[in-house]
């Protein structure tokens, strides 16, 4: 039969594993293996109690969050992959309004950039339906089905390079702003992590 200490440890590791589900299986198992080795080694010290060892590690959920956020922010702030950047922002969005706003702005930027690129690709196939029109109402850029009633198309085939150039600028600006934002978040996260340290540099401890 499993003793109480062993059960406590197993439960802690299960919670840790659950907290790391968004990471790859290899990364997750390596982390769990390392924490298991740490607990077992600490438990070998005479008089050591599993409950105390686990308390010193912090809650399994908090430990998992530190791994997850640290790796994600570190990778995302140096990446140009929209998917990774949006994942980084999403993890921050779950913590407050500023993150939600940043995620929404980035999603909007990527959607507009991708949309414009798609219309540039579609223009040769649907020349009458893709373009930049002005009419009696507001102007329309992109795809219109059916074509805008009474509208006048402005760019013709120039729509393709114009849309591609505009999309590139929007995508570049969105990526640049997102990476800058995530770098700031990463610094904030590191400060938060440093605050979780025990008082340090106190001579004579």
């Amino acid at each position, binding site marked *: 039969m499993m003793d109480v200490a062993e059960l406590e440890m197993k439960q802690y590791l299960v919670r840790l594993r659950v907290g790391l589900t968004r990471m790859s299986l290899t990364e997750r198992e390596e982390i769990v293996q390392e924490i298991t080795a740490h607990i077992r080694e600490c438990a070998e010290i005479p008089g050591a109690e599993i409950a105390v060892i686990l308390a010193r590690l912090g809650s399994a959920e908090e430990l998992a969050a530190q791994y997850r956020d640290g790796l994600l922010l570190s990778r995302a702030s140096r990446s140009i992959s929209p998917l990774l950047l949006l994942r980084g922002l999403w993890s921050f969005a779950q913590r407050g309004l500023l993150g939600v706003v940043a995620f929404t702005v980035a999603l909007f930027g990527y959607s507009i950039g991708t949309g414009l690129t798609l219309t540039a690709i579609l223009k040769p196939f649907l020349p009458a339906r893709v373009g930049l029109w002005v009419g009696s109402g507001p102007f329309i850029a992109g795809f219109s089905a059916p074509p805008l009633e009474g509208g006048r198309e402005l760019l013709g085939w120039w729509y393709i390079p114009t849309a591609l150039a505009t999309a590139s600028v929007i995508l570049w600006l969105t990526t640049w702003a997102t990476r800058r934002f995530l770098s700031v978040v990463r610094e904030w996260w590191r400060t938060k992590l*440093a605050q979780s340290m025990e008082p340090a540099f106190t001579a004579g401890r």
Partner: protein
Amino acid sequence: MYMANKRAEPTTMEISIRWEAQLRKGALEMAILAALWRDRLYGLEIIRFLESSSQLILAEGTIYPILSRLKTEGLLTSEWVEAEAGHPRKYYSLTKSGQVRVRQMAEVWIDFSRGLERLIAPVLQKGGTK
């Protein structure tokens, strides 16, 4: 009449704690990388080494995510070694870029602290007054 609706100003103690956190933030990565300068170490050894050689006491749950991130950033490499105790240990070593980074950090730190030491020496002089 004085209305106490203004946002409370941080106390001297709070300011001090925030400043110390900023200071630790700057030192934490350098301390971990420096601990690995001479030899490869595993997590618990790094914690003990920092405690014994610099009085830098880390919460145990803090160090592992940092080691993982430093490895992702290419500053550390790791390998599992079967220990005599019966369970494997994950040893960390500095990579070439980790060695370069910690050396740069150490040089900046020394220059910075020497300058500050000169600046604050009069403040700490015994019996000295402004």
